[in-house]
């Protein structure tokens, strides 16, 4: 579903990513892990087409996301949902309007039906009663759940999460993780998660890609990351578990 083959990226003279390669299979949950500044979010931005990558270095759903023309963009992005670190809900719109926006723009559904779909999605993420609220009226955890609801409003086959647990307390983070897992099962989504949360990774991920200073130094299952990976990866996991 996703293939990254030799991705390198520089800003000025600084090498941010160095020859990153990995694949994501359909139906898997893949965690891109690493410490702050390791290049995780930069990889994600390449997968989303926000940063340019040449040729076939990055393919998502068979296409290079940064080279899709305007006409194909709508059909491409309909298949992708993104949960941003800060939520990225449009502050000038209510929660209901935020979730309804992709449906309004990419479908010809009548407004009442769109509202019903939005309310169902809010129910799925346990946010009943927030339809008329503005993002500024929500708590951190509620904002993330609303953003997750927007990301899945079109039932996309592919979901990207950028540090979903950032800024959340452990209980709220665990609730969000469980929600993502449930939606993954219900909707059969492929999930790519950029994170540095080790417990979330161990609970959720089928595959771990570990980045260190812009290079991919480990690819494998979470179990093998704990036991047979390079020392820096084992150390990261151990510290993440509080050992």
């Amino acid at each position: 579903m996703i293939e990254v083959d030799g991705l390198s990226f520089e800003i000025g003279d600084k090498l941010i990513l160095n020859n990153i390669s990995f694949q994501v299979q359909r139906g898997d949950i893949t965690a891109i892990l690493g410490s702050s500044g390791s290049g995780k979010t930069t990889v994600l931005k390449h997968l989303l087409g926000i940063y340019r990558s040449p040729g076939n270095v990055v393919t998502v759903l068979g296409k290079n996301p940064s080279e899709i023309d305007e006409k194909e963009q709508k059909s491409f992005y309909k298949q992708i949902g993104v949960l941003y670190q800060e939520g990225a809900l449009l502050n000038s719109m209510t929660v209901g309007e935020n979730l309804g926006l992709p449906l309004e723009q990419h479908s010809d559904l009548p407004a009442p039906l769109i509202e019903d779909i939005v309310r169902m999605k809010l129910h799925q993420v346990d946010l009943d009663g927030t339809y008329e609220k503005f993002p500024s009226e929500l708590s951190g955890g509620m904002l993330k759940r609303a953003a997750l609801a927007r990301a899945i409003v079109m039932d996309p086959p592919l979901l990207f999460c950028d540090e979903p647990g950032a800024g959340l307390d452990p209980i709220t983070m665990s609730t969000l993780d469980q929600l993502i897992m449930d939606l993954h099962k219900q909707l059969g989504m492929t999930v790519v998660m950029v994170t540095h949360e080790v417990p979330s990774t161990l609970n959720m991920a089928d595959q771990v890609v570990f980045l260190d200073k812009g290079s991919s130094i480990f690819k494998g299952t979470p179990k093998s990351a704990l036991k047979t990976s390079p020392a820096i990866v084992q150390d990261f996991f151990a510290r993440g578990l509080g050992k």
Partner: protein
Amino acid sequence: MTVKMRDQKHADYQLDGETLTIGGSMTLGSLKEFLDYVEQAFRNYRGKTVIFRLDSLQEADTAGISAIHHIREKLTERGIDVKIDGPPPDIQQQLSTLSDEQIFAKSPGKKWGFMERIGRNMSHILREYILSYLEIAAEITYWSMVDLFKKKTHRKGEVVNQAVLMGVNAALIVGAMSFIIGLVLALQSAAQLRAFGANIYIVDLTVIAMMSEMGPLITAIMVAGRSGSAIAAELATMKVTSETDALRTMGLNPVRFVMVPKMHAGILTMPFLTILADVTGILGGMLIATSSLGISPLVFLNRMEESLLLKDIIFGIIKSLVFVYLIVITGSYFGTQSDKGASEVGKVTTSAVVVSISLVIVADSIMGLLIY
């Protein structure tokens, strides 16, 4: 010399011949006196060697270690050979770290000649500012024209919403300011015209000045301050909170979704605001004409009919459209150029207003030269 600190920890230091003994606790609190002492002690030092004796140094924080390193570097620059004697192992390790040239490495930087610097700066300005400004102007202009005939490129009702924000909500302030400007313009002119017995020409002066110049200009300045800053702030904030990324990954073009409705709204409302400014400015002038020069409103209006040409009205409206175009483009440019961070939002807002007003004034003078 011994310096006692309040917390009972103190630094001991003494220069004796070519040996500087440093002991006790060399921490941030004791550094000022230490550095002053060292500067004084080495001012007239003529020796070729200095030994830093550190065996009695019990404690040093990062500031203390850095200070010792700093003095070593200064003395080395003067051609004095510095030896470190007997530091405790942990102090030695920290000093070794500071000896790593990579920590203090500064890029050497090529020295450019005067003309080369001018060329490099002009090239930077052209690439970073002018070309990227033209790029966004082209994109907004293109989509503004294309989206007149397309639906679903932005929120339903957004153009009307923006028209209310940019136009309706500005009407009162534009009207009030233009009234005052018209009044002041007529007031300043009245004294001179009275001296020559040319009272009636106050009508020509007020009407033509307001319709062809002051009306569009005052309106543009008010709109730049209100709407230009709001556009820049909104876009910069959207960038900071990843809302523009979110729009892109929902298959929506931020230019078409956010900026084009503002352009459409501006084009729609600016002529009306300008006409409002013209009318209220003329009313201000009429007030002075009536009160100071004894010209009745009826005479004023008759004279206005004679002196006002259609081209003055049309030219004023064309100017207003050019001005609002520049204001929306400039606000959009600065909003999209901002870096992440709250302080950037303030910076780009200020820049958007200043540059918008400057461009409006430049455009005004160019159009004036072309027409007149």
